């Protein structure tokens, strides 16, 4: 008998499901970080598969910086209704009080307070001991070294030089009080795998990934979409309608669009295969030095 071999997407899917079930079996209070992007969409889809016919045995947490694209928020709420999962939305109250925003306080402080700090607060507040994140090892050099089950001390810090050995598919999810783990079920996926899987499984994603006429301004080489009237325009700036899409989603003032006519999944994949720049280029926060992401992670950024 010729045994059917798994395709590589099936193998990736199976590994991710295994990881998620392991967390649910071993941790007392897991949560899934839901950033509304395509990786989160894939992660959610995998989770629905992993626990079917049961409902998701954990809530989804969205850390809302109040500067996400409006379409992302609409999409998030619609997904919660469609799939009936428990959605927790958290915003750093201190950031709200001080009206922190990327335009007034700069991207670094905004990210620090509204994202990194907010995430830590939320995890502490709800007492989550394990949090799923959609990061992939192909995204960035320091991620390539991170474990699938990544241990965080009680201050949410990652110690890259002192990671737990991770053998076979035997994950160590044991922690002491106050400590937590971040779990990355998509570690071994590549950007192409994610798109291919979205295509194969017909997973719904935020429309911003598809090309459309959108109002943008060119700021320092980045095409920033004017998503609401909180965006202060410079004297010589005038939003223009351009055919653009986003390769990655985040806070709209910090996320550059790319000129593109790709309006279907196949066209997106084609564009991806022929593109000449990597995914993170659209993320304003990564533009500092190479070690910036590692540093952010050590401080507790996902």
């Amino acid at each position, binding site marked *: 008998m010729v045994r059917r071999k798994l395709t590589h997407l099936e193998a990736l899917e199976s590994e991710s499901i295994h990881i998620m079930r392991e967390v649910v079996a071993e941790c007392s209070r897991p949560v899934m970080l839901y950033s509304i992007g395509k990786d989160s969409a894939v992660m959610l889809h995998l989770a629905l598969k992993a*626990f079917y016919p049961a409902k998701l045995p954990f809530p989804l947490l969205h850390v809302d910086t109040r500067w996400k694209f409006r379409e992302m928020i609409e999409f998030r709420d619609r997904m919660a209704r469609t799939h009936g999962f428990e959605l927790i939305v958290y915003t750093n109250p201190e950031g709200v009080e001080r009206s922190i925003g990327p335009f007034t306080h700069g991207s670094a402080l905004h990210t620090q307070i509204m994202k990194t700090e907010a995430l830590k607060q939320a995890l502490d507040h709800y007492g989550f001991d394990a949090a799923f994140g959609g990061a992939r090892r192909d995204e960035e050099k320091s991620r390539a*070294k991170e474990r699938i089950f990544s241990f965080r001390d009680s201050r949410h810090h990652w110690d890259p030089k002192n990671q737990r*050995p991770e053998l076979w598919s035997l994950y160590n999810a044991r922690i002491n009080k106050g400590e937590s783990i971040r779990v990355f079920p998509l570690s071994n996926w590549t950007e192409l795998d994610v798109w291919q899987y979205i295509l194969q499984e017909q997973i719904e994603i935020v429309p911003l990934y598809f090309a459309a006429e959108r109002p943008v301004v060119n700021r320092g080489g980045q095409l920033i979409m004017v998503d609401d009237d909180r965006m202060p325009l410079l004297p010589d700036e005038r939003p223009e309608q351009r055919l653009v899409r986003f390769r990655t989603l985040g806070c709209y003032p910090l996320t550059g669009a790319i000129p593109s006519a790709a309006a279907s999944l196949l066209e997106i994949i*084609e564009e991806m295969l022929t593109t*000449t720049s990597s995914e993170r280029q659209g993320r304003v926060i990564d533009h500092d030095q190479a070690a910036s992401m*590692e*540093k952010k992670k050590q401080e507790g950024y996902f």
Partner: protein
Amino acid sequence: MLRRTETPLAVETYLRAQETKDLLRFITCGSVDDGKSTLIGRLLYESKMLFEDQLAALERDSRRVGTQGGKLDFALLVDGLAAEREQGITIDVAYRTFTTDKRKFIVADTPGHEQYTRNMATGASTAELAVILIDARKGVLTQTRRHSFIVSLLGIRSIVLAVNKMDLMGYAEEVFHAIEADYRAFATELGLADICCIPLSALNGDNIVHRSTSMPWYQGPALLSHLETVPLRQGPGAETFRMPVQWVNRPNQTFRGFAGTIVSGTASVGADIRILPSGRTSRISRIVTRDADLAEAVAGQSVTVTLCDEVDVSRGDVICTADQPLAVADQFESHVLWMDNSPMLPHRPYIIKLGACSLQGALSQPKYKVNVNTLEHVAAKTLELNEIGVCNLELDRHVPFAPYAEARELGGFIIIDRFTNNTVGMGIIHFALRRSTNVHWQALDVDKRARAGKAGQKPCVLWFTGLSGSGKSTIANLVERKLHSHGHMTYLLDGDNIRHGLNKDLGFTAADRVENIRRVAEVAKLMADAGLIVLVSFISPYRSERLLARELMDKGEFLEIFVDTPLEVCEQRDPKGLYKKARAGEIKNFTGIDSAYERPEKPELTIDTTRCSPAQSAGIISEFLESNGHLSPPPR
């Protein structure tokens, strides 16, 4: 990669081609400066996995910090952590993916230095093939042997010996052949047979993607073509269905599914299965997925199955073909690689994770450890960080398993410390010791309750712990006198006395302290079983061993009494002059001085000897016994 001119139709064709590709996971091992990072960077570059912005960054970095005089320094692509870039070495395993027309690859890039053996094992555990790098100028070195040993231990059967830096040896054929012969002789000893030796220059790109024109004498494949075509593993026993149960899916009263990843064989609806360790049988009734039920599922798939009968199944059980079940045992011979800074302590209870089971277990003193550089067997009492030895693994219950050589998923285990929760070691099971099925607990007719009833008491173990000189023995003595005068049957086990007899072969190293306590705990257990009130007066500095003792006894039987006297006070009292000697360096490993005392977290009683006299302390303890019913016969 596609060219821009191609149409969506081409994309679909391309995606279909992607779909059928399989995945090879491999590991690269080499020492500092062998050219490993350069080789991997070269593979990523040649397989066009780099985007323009990444290439631009590489060019920029090459000029800034590169070691190639401004030429592209491929090593910069792969050294991910800031600390690594600063020191120019690889510390931790990095996983990278790349794709060619024929296959997808995940490379685990691992450090080669002896102090990172554990990181290398991590990378090897999920790999099917190993690329072992050698510097052509240096030939087979100690580290080459070490890497090969670890790789073979972790069950990798397919080896590529990449003889790098051939350019520095004038691409000389004799150099390559000498190294190859040398290596093959050694590898045969390890039982490695499937070896492909390739002469390379990672720097110049010779024999990486294309056969090099500089080495026309070499007739074998280039590295990448070998990686693309080497046959993937088909483990033995691949036909037999086995699935560890990872999670029980119970959304409501009617549905009860068992979720897990199939390790081998095929699950099909209607198949007869057996559940281990219970041995109960049933049949598969459904294979449930969110899309639709399946008729069949194969190895590697994560599924949810339901059974025809209401049988008891929980996480850690293994569902397998009914007539070819796995073996079940609780004692094994295994290779262990220690991964923690504090050494392995024989007989200390650790958490063992094997398949989907997490349970308590302990390792015996190593039969030997392996000198990873010479492969010699060396006598050992313990294993230190990065040491590999052969030990018996004893679990606190029977579990289904397979030898590691048959199934990594059912024969590999990790060792977790119960207090730090760190992964402190890993092991692989070779076989079960026959003992485990032969020794059965003898059920005796006259039991503990009967014996204790005669003595008019409820047996228990009063475990006195505290620093030397804290007052344990004094107080324990007074308690025993008191109980005895009231007609109770008691026995006092004193640390110093036991060390003269039963434990006279033990010293004061951490390993010996563990064994010391283990024996005393077992003796105390027997005595409690004989119906006695047992008083144990032992420093017993480690939480793990006190927990071991606690768990040996029946519930409510173990009473931990912490004689909490500050070190300064003990040292002042110094009734035996031991502190003075320890301070003078005449006694090594003295608790409180150069050996740790871990304070109890939740003792049943804490005695503060700076506030009460020994007699008062003894009074507190006997009152405690009285009020907990130990001084009257157990209820019928």
